[in-house]
């Protein structure tokens, strides 16, 4: 009996340990898979360096509050608080409501690469700029769900729109508007801050209602929420979306990059990987905008600078929070942060948008637009 008892105890103990070990192993395997998926390369080039040239009202911008930026070949579009500015041949031109723009404050921009048309989400509707002509859609003159347009994205002939009263889409061929809100989607809050569309899926970043996924072929909606609910803590790392308050989303190479005011997430369709200041190179968990380069690389526009993640290393570009001097830091996989000597930085720490022009970047900030000219090493 004693032996049996010992054996029973031992057996139970061994089983318990085995189960724990198995759980740890599964968890570790998941984490390995999640991080492994974003480590396709072993020899990592150092993060890019830029020389920043900044534009403000002094040199042609209509306003220093730049909400959005779009690179369109040699043209650069800047959505400001006081008009839509376009930079071409070293000259700025500004479109205003007099030209047909829906509202002076331009929050978001998207390029239809097939037609060359630019779509602008404003505080007063959605505008289409085509060959110099501006057609504007509002909640009064069209099927647009709301005049406050936070985000816009193009996929094929459909324009997907994020508004203060849900998402919607416009089929440019038929003219049909379709609205997405609490009545026909799992959206609880209808304050939609961002949208990213591809031919297969569309993602809506919903302020307070997580991330919504729409599969175009099936018409199916899926909702991704913070497993910890509205708690501002993370009980288990990489368990799911980092937070309910999603501010921006970027869907590229079948990978979802999601920004919140409490960190960022990467989702590959199966596994989540979250980024917080405490365990990544993010300069702040307060993220206004996110843009994926590909499955492994992304840019993060925060209230404390612009950050770049290459799958291993992080780089932060900003005027120093202490003295305002240009600053660039690099954080490697081991968490070691190294300053890089630079003489220029984005116009301001409060970064609201980014786009790519070849190797260069254009950065929208609260106090100007910045052109990051890639520097060769």
């Amino acid at each position, binding site marked *: 009996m004693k032996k049996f008892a010992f054996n029973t105890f031992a057996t139970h103990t061994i089983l318990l340990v085995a189960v724990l070990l198995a759980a740890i192993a599964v968890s570790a395997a998941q984490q390995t898979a999640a991080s492994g998926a974003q480590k396709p390369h072993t020899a990592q080039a150092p993060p890019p360096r830029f020389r920043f040239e900044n534009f403000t009202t002094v040199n042609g911008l209509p306003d220093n509050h730049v909400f959005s930026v779009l690179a369109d070949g040699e043209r650069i579009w800047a959505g400001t608080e006081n008009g839509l500015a376009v930079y071409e041949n070293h000259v700025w031109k500004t479109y205003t409501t007099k030209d047909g723009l829906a509202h002076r404050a331009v929050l978001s921009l998207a390029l239809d690469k*097939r*037609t*060359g*048309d630019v779509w602008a989400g404003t505080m007063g509707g959605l505008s*289409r700029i*085509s*060959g*110099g*002509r501006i*057609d504007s859609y509002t*909640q*009064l*003159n*069209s*099927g647009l*769900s*709301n005049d406050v347009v936070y985000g816009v994205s193009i996929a094929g*002939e459909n324009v997907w729109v994020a508004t203060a*009263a849900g998402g919607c889409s416009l089929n*440019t*061929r*038929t*003219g*049909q*508007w*379709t*609205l997405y*809100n609490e*009545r*026909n989607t799992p959206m609880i809050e209808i304050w939609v801050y961002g949208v990213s569309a591809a031919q297969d899926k569309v993602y809506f970043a919903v302020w307070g209602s997580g991330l919504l996924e729409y599969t175009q072929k099936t018409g199916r909606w899926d909702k991704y929420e913070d497993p910890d609910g509205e708690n501002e803590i993370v009980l288990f790392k990489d368990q799911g979306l980092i937070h309910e308050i999603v501010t921006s989303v970027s869907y590229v190479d079948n990978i979802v990059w999601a920004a919140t005011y409490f960190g960022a997430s990467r989702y590959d369709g199966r596994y989540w990987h979250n980024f917080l200041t405490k365990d990544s190179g993010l300069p702040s968990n307060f993220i206004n905008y996110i843009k994926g380069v590909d499955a492994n690389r992304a840019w993060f526009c925060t209230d404390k600078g612009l950050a770049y993640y290459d799958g291993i290393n992080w780089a932060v570009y900003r005027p120093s929070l202490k003295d305002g001097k240009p600053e660039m830091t690099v954080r490697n996989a081991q968490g070691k942060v190294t300053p890089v000597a630079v003489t220029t930085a984005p116009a301001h720490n409060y970064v609201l948008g980014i786009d790519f022009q070849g190797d260069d970047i254009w950065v929208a900030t609260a106090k100007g637009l910045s052109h990051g000219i890639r520097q060769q090493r």
Partner: protein
Amino acid sequence: MNRRFQSAMGAGLTSLAVALFAVALWTECPVRASGADDVDYASPLEVLLSPDGSRLYVLCQQSEEVRVIDAFTYAVIKNIAVGRVPRGISLSPSGDRLFVTNTWEDTLSVIDTRTLAVTATWPVGSEPSGVVEDRAGKHLFVANRISNDVAVLNATTGEEEKRLLAGRGSSYLSLSPDGGRIYVTHVYPNPSPHRTPPESEITVIDTARAVVVDRIPLHGVAGVFHLAFSADGRLGVVAEYHPKNLVPIAHLEHGGYFTDTLTLFGADVGQPVEIPLDELERYASRPFGVAIAPDKSRIFVTCEGSEMVTVIDVQRLLHFIHARPRPASGSFAYDLAASANYVIARINVGHDPRGLALNRSGSKLFVANRLEDTISVIDTHSNRVAATITLAGPKTVSAIRHGEQTFYTSRYGFQGQIGCANCHIDSTFDGITWNLEPDGFGRNIVDNKMLEGLKGTEPYKWNGGNPNIPTECGPRTEKYFWRAEQYDDATLADLSTYLRNLPTRPNRWKLPGREMTPAQERGLALFTRDTDKFGKPIAESNRCSYCHSGPKGTNQKLFDVGTHKPNDNGNLLKSAPLTEIALTAPYLHDGSAQTLEEIWTVFNPDDKHGRTNDLTKDELNDLIEYLRTR
């Protein structure tokens, strides 16, 4: 019975007989289901010459075929059947393929010019019109009149790659001589604020990239048709109307309610400039087709309503443009003395001249007379019609045909200025609001209406003031529009017959059969509902389906829907038919609603135009999706 009584009796009986005869004419004219009594007319709309000049391709809209004619002997080589109601025709740059757009079935016919057989029929956009292939043979560009865009097709497979935003009612395309640009015109003006001059554009497409790169504004212009280039590419010319819709039509007598103009652009003129074709008492009503002589000595313009070809001396024209101080607007449209400086001939041709083509040397000009089934051959040295090619078909003029000729001619208008088709382009509408009656500037503004499906929707006018088509088209038109010659009874009867029998084009939003999209079904439920969202009954007269009942969407009664303005004389309006309602913006009697949405989001604050203020935005969208199927 005294003589006076007998005389009065006789006069009365005569009047009764005349009246009965007129009624008989109105009521007994044949009714066609889809073209009926004049289905055999050819109605040539466009003409093209083969690159070697040996063949004339004639696009016949009514017989729905391309007639291939020997350009020297005028003998028929072959008739090639195409699709329903063709409108656009062009040759591939090599001349080996002929493209024809078929507006009523939304297809493109591809014809092999060696075999003269249709080798492919490709689906395209809504009401395809102009078509052109790029020099590289990579893309076909098709202007879609209903969807206001230009479809870019793979020129080999016909597969549509994308659509480019064009002007409203985009219809005609021209390739620049170097092939680098495509210029697109449109027949309805782009949306513009209420009571402002119409705005149109020439949409400029980069051929290689297949993107819109520019839009040349045409201020004050509505109704823009063909465009041509000089061979050296330095002069572009576009045919258009310049309506003066902000002043009462009483001003027809004061120098024109429309000016018929050309806009010139390109290196020869610098900034685009608009020039009139009219001169007092000699109007060039409704310019449509335009061609420039190979040596750039002449411009030829067909003028539909005036049934003539206007000939312009280019050297004198350029001298005028450069010598005269140019108005700040860039337009000489209001100078009716201008055309005497450059118009050198006005050549009478047949009914409703449309497309035209010059031979390679520029010595012969072929003009398609749509409502006469003839081709005028003009000797450009003498500026005279040297020959007339008569196309095979009926030799008699049916009532409908006569009515159509009456509709398109401007001969009845004061000094020949305008015809019905000025405001009802291709028998539709024009997208413009007008100040028709002589009751003061800005009073009783009215939106122009669609003519399709007119029969059975009386009374006419927004205030229901005209009980039937003969009244609408007879005394009212004569009084307010023509201010001149009156129709005789037979002509008025034929015109009425033509209008009653105007067929309605296929609705592009309807699914086959009785199927509906989910949004359309939800919209129909809202259209027919009798209780609001709060469960309260909606009074019968405030339901959509009450006033807009029946197959044409009108119960033909008058209502006050709360949309009258201080400048309107009354507040009762006839419930408007819903036929093809999606196409006919702006809306409401005065065109104050720019879109269907605005009818309810802006102009229905008290729910007098139907109970709608309980609807959510997505429900309103559903209602509109349903209305677009009407």
